[in-house]
């Protein structure tokens, strides 16, 4: 039972959604964009989130599209994690999504919801950061395409009322060799203690991390350390761990030191996959 009233809208276009948002915001309705609802509904039910209106984006073609666009693959923001995995277009994104929540929820949780939600792990951003994804953001001025690095820093940073309609990655990155390692407290279906995604391009290993710090990130300076072949992998991993120590999170899922341990194991597994040619 959601203990407050709210209005429901289902616009047919991104332009309509954005103008509706502004109109509702002006009249004090506190609107939110609505995809799968798994986060908004559950948080509203227990009183952790309030809104006066939801704008369901699942009737907007830009948000529900998925497929090839020339040399790029496009993923609408209202596409479910399950649909992304089944499409096989970007295997690393598919595998990452397939380890978020259980199978039932994967058919509800949307890409946009995972990126923009308040649950801090946002693991779907990891493959997108590695693939230098292009993000399509719709505002009053129409659609704009920007690099993910411009609008994601720990969390999505969009102007109020802007709508993320989708994102695209190049075929080259989508098909690059990659690895995904997720460590949880104990239960397989759980939030990450550490999730590491890695992607190899021209012999260079990119990686991004969720679970260790408050927010997920990709850090180019740490990638330099990771790829510094003058030192052995274990020492490289140790060095990155030292860099990460200051911001590591402690909570009921795991202490900061344990998260760093799990992270190091994940990095070592990525190295092992690379060494053994197990990255696919």
């Amino acid at each position, binding site marked *: 039972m959601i*203990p407050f009233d709210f209005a429901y809208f289902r616009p047919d276009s991104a332009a309509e959604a954005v103008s509706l948002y502004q109109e509702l915001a002006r009249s004090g309705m506190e609107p939110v964009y609505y995809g799968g609802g798994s986060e908004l509904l559950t948080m509203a*039910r227990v009183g952790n989130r309030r809104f006066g209106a939801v704008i369901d984006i699942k009737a907007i073609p830009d948000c529900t599209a998925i497929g090839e666009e020339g040399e790029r693959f496009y993923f609408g923001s209202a596409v479910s994690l399950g649909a992304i995995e089944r499409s096989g277009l970007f295997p690393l994104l598919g595998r990452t999504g397939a380890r978020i929540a259980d199978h039932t929820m994967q058919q509800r949780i949307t890409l946009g919801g995972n990126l923009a939600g308040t649950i801090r792990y946002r693991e779907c951003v990891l493959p997108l950061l590695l693939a230098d994804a292009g993000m399509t953001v719709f505002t009053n001025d129409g659609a704009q395409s920007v690099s993910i690095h411009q609008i994601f820093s720990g969390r999505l940073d969009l102007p109020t009322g802007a709508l993320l309609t989708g994102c695209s990655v190049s075929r080259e990155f989508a098909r690059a060799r990659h690895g995904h390692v997720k*460590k949880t407290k*104990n*239960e*397989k279906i759980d939030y990450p203690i550490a999730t590491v995604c890695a992607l190899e391009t021209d012999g260079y290993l990119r990686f991004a991390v969720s679970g260790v710090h408050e927010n997920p990130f990709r850090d180019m300076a740490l990638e330099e350390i990771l790829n510094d072949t003058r030192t052995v992998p274990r020492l490289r991993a140790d060095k990155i761990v030292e860099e990460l120590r200051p911001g590591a999170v402690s909570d009921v899922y795991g202490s900061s030191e*344990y998260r760093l*341990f799990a992270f190091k194991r994940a990095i070592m597994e990525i190295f092992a996959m690379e060494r053994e040619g197990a990255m696919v």
Partner: protein
Amino acid sequence: MEITLAGAAVRRKDARSKVTGTAVYTDDGRTPQMLTAKIVTSTCAHGLIRHTDISRAAALKGVCAVLTGADATMLCGPLLADRPPLAQGKVRYFGEPVALVIAESDAAAAQAALLVEVEYEPIRPVFTPSEALRPGAPLLHETLGAYKKVVDEIYPEPGTNVCDRIRLIKGDAQKALLSCHTVIDAYYTHPPTDHAALETRAAQARIDGDGVIHITTSTQAPHEVQKEIASLFGVDMGKVQVTAPFVGGAFGGKAGVDLEILAVLASRAVGGRPVRLANTREEDIATSPVGIGAEVYVRLGADNTGKFKALEMRVLLDTGAYTDMGPRMARAILADCTGPYNIEHVFCECVTVYTNHTYATSLRGFGHITSTFCIERTVDKLAASLRRDPAALRNINLIRPGDTAPTNFTVTESTLGNPEACLEGLKKLIRWEEGPIRQEGKFVYAKGLAMIWKTSSSPPDAGSSAVLLFNDDGSVTLQVACVEIGPAMRTTAAQICAAALGMDVQNVHVTMAVSTDAAPRHWKTVASMTTFLLGRAILSAVEDAKKQLRRLAALSMRCASEDLDVSGGRVSRRSDPAQYVEIKSICRGYKFQHGNTVGGRVIGRGSVTMQNLTTLDRHTGHGRAGPYWTVGAQAVEVQYDTTDHSYRLLRAATVLDAGKIINPEAAHAVVRGGMAMGLSQAGREGLEFDPSGRILDSSLRSYKVMHFSQTPEYLTQFVETPNVEGPFGARGIGEHGAIGMPAALANALSLAARVSLDELPVTPEKIWLIRSEKPL
């Protein structure tokens, strides 16, 4: 007519409605006029209520009433009446009900609940028994000495946080420990856990124009609800009518009387209109009672041959803010404290302690998960210290017929069963001869064992009854009050009846809902005692009916009733079964040729209570806690990853001495279910509190119950040593699958990781923490 035997595979009678989703549970039965009640809960773990303002909530459209502690001045509790249904002047745990809103709609109730304002003056909280026992610890109950004892045998210590203390003394453990060759000293902890039943608790109540209170509730104990409500509200028990429809899992968490009281208070406040009250998952975890936590000190001494000589045990139970069933679990732990081993010298003290956690109630195993974890970890430590095979060490110490149980009661083959056969069966099942440990690359494969036993620890007068009615077509309607909480108990009841009457179970009918109006009293559907207690009542009702049938048939067949047999829907001559009369032609009485009828309708009546049980002596623990034990042996095999300390559950095995299996599929299923629950507790479950006492994992997002995909391969087997007083020789098996799983898992992982895992749940981080002092 096909005759259903005890031991035959019988499809559960509720299969179709459960599979098709048409089974009706408490909160499914909503009527249009029904109001909704919503609990307002405390945001403070320990504090005085300075001020409560209900005016904004009461003024909201659609709100019918708002109640606070001032509107419900009663105190309740099954052993000690220390719990107000709505907090009175003080809150003692985060999530405690402080007000109750009753409204026309769910929405209005939910909105109004947010508008009730409560101001607290915080008091320093205490969160562990040892903290609560320290001199100067803040008191939860200042008026502990003034509370009414519901049962005589509870011993609160006013001026402290101790709500009960009991000791068991057999021999002289202290002295015997001095002369032991090896003594293992250990300390264990088990946090409070949640029952996590699929169906969250729910209750509905209305009071009709004649003052009859009607309650529909998700309960394991409809007759206890009837009794408690009648007593709290000062009405005759006959004026309280309780219905228990299907219950979606209970695990001991629905054996108390909780939401029912609030539902009746709510209905009373709105002139008797029907009111529903259903927990959200978060309320079910934080507000309704949880599984008990514990801190346990163990000293186990053995001689140089490995024979256990003496056991000293001090158990501090975290009963949370209210007594509820804590002291009864203390007695259950006490009575079985040694595990199924013969130990000459035993000292055990159980102290039940208040803390500012959610209050605790029974949970599958009734304290035995904790005590078994402590004993079986200690036995493994002893085996390691003596360099003995853990299975062999267990074997030489098993309790056997003629030995005395901790409560000084001499066991027999019938009361005990055969622990040795269970252990031997288990060893074969998990291929113990291949060894408990091996390594392959980064993985270590290890097996851990646990021996278990449990008796009922019920009140000595717990009883059950059954009524058998014959329909005009000769089929039988069985009226019994066991609740269908999951393990097909009502189907088993029908099967016992059919087997005893020599009928097809298809012709023995039971309703799935239980109503206190129709079904005669059964204690509670708890303690793995239903098959035993209710089964005996059914057998006695069947005998009663058979006697009546034989008497009627004797008239018709002109012979002595002693010469007749009842079977196959007939009463026939023993000497010549071709001479018979059908039950359907005599069950309304015997009708002579010209229509005169004698005898009247056949009604079978059966009623039993526990026999020869005693309460345990406060100072020595001596007495008889249950009619028999169910013993068993369990094992878990894990694959442990030495690089990150994660592990997978490969196989879990249980061999129980079930006495006699009545419905094989149901029996295997209930044991597997217990094992799943035990493994989930072993590796995942534990309520976590922040420093202010707020529960951090009060939703299933963070309170992790083992996912189906993570379950191991289950191996279950039964030994059948008849319990001669049980129906067809049966023993209870409802809880036992769960009991040894945490011990077996911790033993397997302690072996695999070469650490001592003495704290539940066993998580990779805990292994890492101990291991991180050693180089990887």
